[in-house]
C-alpha cells in the first residue's frame, strides 16, 4: 500500500517513542526520544519539507534532546523507582490509549479525507523561499515577538 521507506520511518518513529517511555533506564529513553525526533525529521523529508526537517534536527535533536540528556545526568533516580508503578493504572492507560487511537482513527476515515487529496504526490513542493517570504512579510510580528 504505502512505499517501504515510509513504513520503515514510521516503525522507527513509533517504536523508539514506545521505547522512550518504557525503557528501564532513563538515559536509554532519552536516546530513544532523540531517535524518534530524527524519525519525525525523516517524515518531514518525505513530505518535501527540507527546511523544516533541518530545523527539527537542529532544534529538537541538537538542543532539546541534549538538554534532556544533561538533566537525566544531573538527576539520579533510585533503582526501586520502577517497582512502584501499579498494574491497574497501566491497564487503564493502555485502554485509554487504544480508545483514543480507535476514535481518532475512525474520525479520520469517516471524514472522507482518504480520497480528497488526490494529487498528494504530484502537487508542487513548497519552496523554502516561499516560507522565508511568508516569515518576513505576513508573520513578521510573530517572528519578532518570538525572538
Amino acid at each position, binding site marked *: 500500500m*504505502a*512505499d517501504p521507506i*515510509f513504513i520503515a520511518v514510521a516503525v522507527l*518513529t*513509533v517504536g523508539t*517513542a514506545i521505547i*522512550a*517511555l518504557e525503557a528501564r533506564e*532513563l538515559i536509554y*529513553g*532519552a536516546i530513544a526520544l532523540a531517535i*524518534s*525526533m530524527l524519525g*519525525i525529521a525523516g*517524515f*518531514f523529508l*518525505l*513530505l*518535501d*519539507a527540507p*527546511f*523544516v526537517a533541518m*530545523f*527539527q534536527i537542529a*532544534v*529538537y535533536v541538537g*538542543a*532539546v534532546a541534549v538538554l*534532556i540528556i544533561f*538533566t537525566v545526568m544531573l*538527576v539520579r*533516580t533510585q533503582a526501586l523507582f520502577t517497582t*512502584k*508503578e501499579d498494574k491497574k*493504572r497501566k491497564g*487503564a*492507560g*493502555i485502554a*485509554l*490509549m*487504544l480508545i*483514543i*487511537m480507535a476514535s*481518532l*482513527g475512525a474520525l*479520520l476515515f469517516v471524514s472522507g*479525507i*482518504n480520497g480528497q*487529496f488526490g494529487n*498528494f*504526490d504530484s*502537487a*508542487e*513542493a*513548497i519552496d523554502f523561499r516561499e*516560507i522565508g517570504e*511568508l*516569515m518576513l512579510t505576513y*508573520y513578521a510580528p510573530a517572528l519578532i515577538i*518570538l525572538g
Partner: protein
Amino acid sequence: MSELVDFLIVSVVLIAIGIYGLVVKRNAIRMLFSIEIIANAANLTLVAFARGLPNAQGQTFALFSIAIAAAEVAVGLGLIIVAYRLYKEIDVAEFRSMRG
C-alpha cells in the same frame, strides 16, 4: 505511494502514545518525553497538510511550534531540577508541599 491519510495515522498513533505516557507515568522526565512526542505528532500533522494543500503557512506554523516547544522544554527541565533539589525525588506523587 503514501497518501495524506498514512501520515495522519502515524500522527494519531504518536498522540495516543504521548497521552498514555502522560497519564500512566509518574516520573516527571517521562512526562516531559510524552509532551515532546505529542508536540512532534502535531507538527507532523501540520506539515502533512501543508504538503497536501499545498500551503506554505503550515510549514511556517510548524517552525514556530518547534521553536516554542524547545523553549517550553527548557523551562520544564529547569522546574524538574529545582524540584529535585527540593524533594530529592522526581516522582510527581511526592510533590505535595501545597497539599492542604
